[in-house]
């Protein structure tokens, strides 16, 4: 007989089923089953009094660095970090070495991730080598397991190529994820442009470097009818464009990252390379606009843009240091802060971190109905902890949140009923 696991007394928050109640979840053979429906010999009961039981979190924007930069992260360590953060699935960006622009690399990632701690959905490149010149083979990558396309980190400059990419991706039913950056405007920049960049003597990147490309992607999405997703939105002006486009019914979706609603450019004071990322941290007005947009639905999802680097890339002069921060283990607590600050309610948090990513990527998850695969995140909302980068599961210790006191922690994560993370203090 199969083993049955019962998650007892947790508060189940499942906005898709319009459910928010304390109840038990029964899991058998990796699926959610109705209570008492199996005559099993072996039953494991896990008491979750005081915890939230959520559909597994899905991070639609991570860099796992494998193949090619295993010293920064591997599929194994990245998914372990994901599980520790309450994630049951991640979508990994194609800027590996080699670039994931063909089915062989896609297949490699899928195979390497098979026994890992989270589901891994590879995102293929828009263009061969992400060089922005010619289309990659979307059909073959999709057959190998790719679920979307992006040239993240190497934004597509050529508008004709982006138009063709959207059209061709639509033919294969694939999503385009845009890293929206007008490279001629951002060239040489390493932080947000403004008073602080002037004071620090650093070349700034204006908000319009993002919003111009957000505007282009909206225009092209409207032209082609393709499904387009805007990655890591940081600027107020971009949000205004997205809000306007959605009101017109353009098929776009958008994500932001926890750092954009938590921090401002002030985090780079002292030339802190662990607060250097692209797009850069912006001003208070932008931070506020991101929070408002998460509340009113203009932004659909929270993704981490988890970008692990080693000190080789970060212990450098600010303008030479690499962009990006690790995020998988802090995302949930930083997003929960929006709940504590009454920007969003718990159901909206689940929408942002699970329902919407599943819907946008077209992958399973986002809800916990009977018969569904048991991908579950259990969160102790009251649990306070000091986040220590050096103790993080990810190889990437590059985070501006080192030493922060955070409230709310993943304590149990399950992928298809298999426990992928269990908090050692609670259990």
């Amino acid at each position, binding site marked *: 007989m199969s083993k049955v696991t019962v998650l007892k007394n947790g508060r189940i928050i499942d906005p898709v089923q319009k459910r928010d109640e304390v109840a038990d979840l029964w899991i058998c053979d990796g699926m959610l089953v109705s209570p008492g429906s199996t005559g099993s010999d072996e039953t494991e009961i896990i008491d979750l009094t005081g915890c939230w039981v959520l559909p597994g979190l899905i991070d639609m924007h991570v860099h796992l660095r494998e193949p090619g930069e295993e010293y920064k992260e591997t599929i194994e360590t990245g998914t372990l970090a994901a599980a520790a953060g309450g994630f049951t699935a991640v979508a990994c960006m194609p800027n590996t070495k080699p670039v994931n622009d063909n089915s062989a690399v896609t297949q490699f990632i899928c195979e390497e991730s098979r026994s890992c701690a989270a589901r891994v959905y590879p995102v293929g490149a828009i263009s061969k080598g992400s060089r922005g010149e010619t289309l990659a083979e979307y059909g073959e990558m999709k057959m190998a397991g790719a679920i979307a396309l992006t040239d993240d980190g190497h934004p597509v400059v050529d508008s004709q190529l982006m138009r063709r990419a959207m059209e061709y991706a639509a033919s294969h039913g694939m999503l385009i994820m845009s890293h929206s950056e007008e490279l001629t405007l951002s060239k040489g920049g390493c932080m947000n*442009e*403004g*008073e*602080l*960049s*002037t*004071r*620090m*003597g*650093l*070349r*700034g990147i*204006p908000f319009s470097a993002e919003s111009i490309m957000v505007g282009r992607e909206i225009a092209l999405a409207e032209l082609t009818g393709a499904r387009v997703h805007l990655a890591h939105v940081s600027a107020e002006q971009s949000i205004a464009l997205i809000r306007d486009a959605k009101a017109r019914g353009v098929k776009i979706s958008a994500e932001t990252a926890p750092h954009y609603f938590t921090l401002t450019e002030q985090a780079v004071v*002292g*030339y802190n390379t662990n607060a250097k990322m692209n797009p850069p941290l912006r001003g208070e007005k932008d931070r506020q606009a991101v929070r408002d947009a998460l509340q009113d639905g203009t932004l659909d999802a929270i993704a981490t843009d988890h970008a692990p680097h080693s000190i080789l890339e970060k*212990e*450098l*002069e*600010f*303008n*030479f240091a690499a962009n990006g921060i690790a995020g998988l283990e802090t995302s949930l607590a930083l997003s929960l802060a929006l709940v504590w600050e009454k920007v969003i309610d718990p159901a909206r948090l689940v929408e942002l971190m699970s329902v919407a990513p599943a819907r946008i990527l077209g992958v399973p998850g986002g809800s916990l109905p009977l018969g569904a695969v048991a991908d579950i995140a259990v969160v102790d909302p009251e649990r306070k902890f000091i986040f220590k980068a050096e103790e993080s599961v990810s190889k990437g210790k590059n985070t501006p949140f080192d030493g922060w006191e955070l409230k709310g922690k993943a304590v149990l994560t399950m992928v298809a009923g298999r426990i992928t993370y269990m908090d050692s203090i609670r259990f």
Partner: protein
Amino acid sequence: MTESEDGGKVQPDYLFEHSHIFGIDQLSVEDISHILATARSFREISTRPIKKVPTLRGKTIVNLFFEPSTRTRLSFEIAAKRMSADTFNISASTSSATKGETLVDTARNIQAMNPDVIILRHSSSGAPQLLAKHINASVINAGDGAHEHPSQGLLDMMTVMDHKGKIEGLKVAIIGDIAHSRVAGSDIIGFSRMGAEVCLAGPQTFIPAGVSSLGAKVCGSVQEAVQDADVVMTLRIQLERQNDSLIPSLREYSRFYGVNRKLMQLAKEDAIVMHPGPINRGVELSPDVADGTHSVILDQVTNGVAVRMALLYLVLGGSKGSEGQGEGR
């Protein structure tokens, strides 16, 4: 010359507490006054027949220059040698962060030789802070990226003080490529902190974002900036700015923004003209003004040595005693 008239700003229990000089931004009004007073007291040493005091004997000072520099390096070296410190010059290339040794590795290597002060010139803003994190020696910023050049800002303030007796209430016009100038970065903060009205002028491509929050006023024209100014500071125009599409040509720049005799007629009669050097004669400054009666450009150079002597002395403990050598004068 007013040699000591501003001493009232420094309280008797004042202590200079900076072991690194990253920028004017970290200095209070008291700090700046104290540095300038110290520099004035050291200036006389350079006029002696034997231009040397034993104040910093036994101290090791390393000039670590990642960018070519003649005058700043020479000025620091002369300053150190007049204080009897041992000086060493390292010229390094900063062309790539990925090739060769990182700045942190360089710092650790130099640290292993136990220097007392490292004077750093680097193309990256914030490089002095990065160096200081990995080293026990004092770090003095000799210019980092487009950030600051604090010793230049201080020598500029010292020169203005010499000629005007004060800084507070003066109108200081800074003309040129503010956005790419670390001298402007230090001067804007320094002069406005000391109570001057700092007015900036140049094409908008040369005016950095949010600069007014540093205490400066951005003027609509160069004439507006120079009108009734006590000090006209001109900045060097880097020749490559034409290729960056910041200005169409040096010729056009010079015609609309160059400081010449006609423009200087708008300034106060006793206005002084300054330039951090080296000058592109005929571009940002016409030769007759550069060499004319308003010009105090060579005074700036002289004061540079005195300011750098003061900085070396103060970061090494100054009056708090540097191994009993402090009374060498």
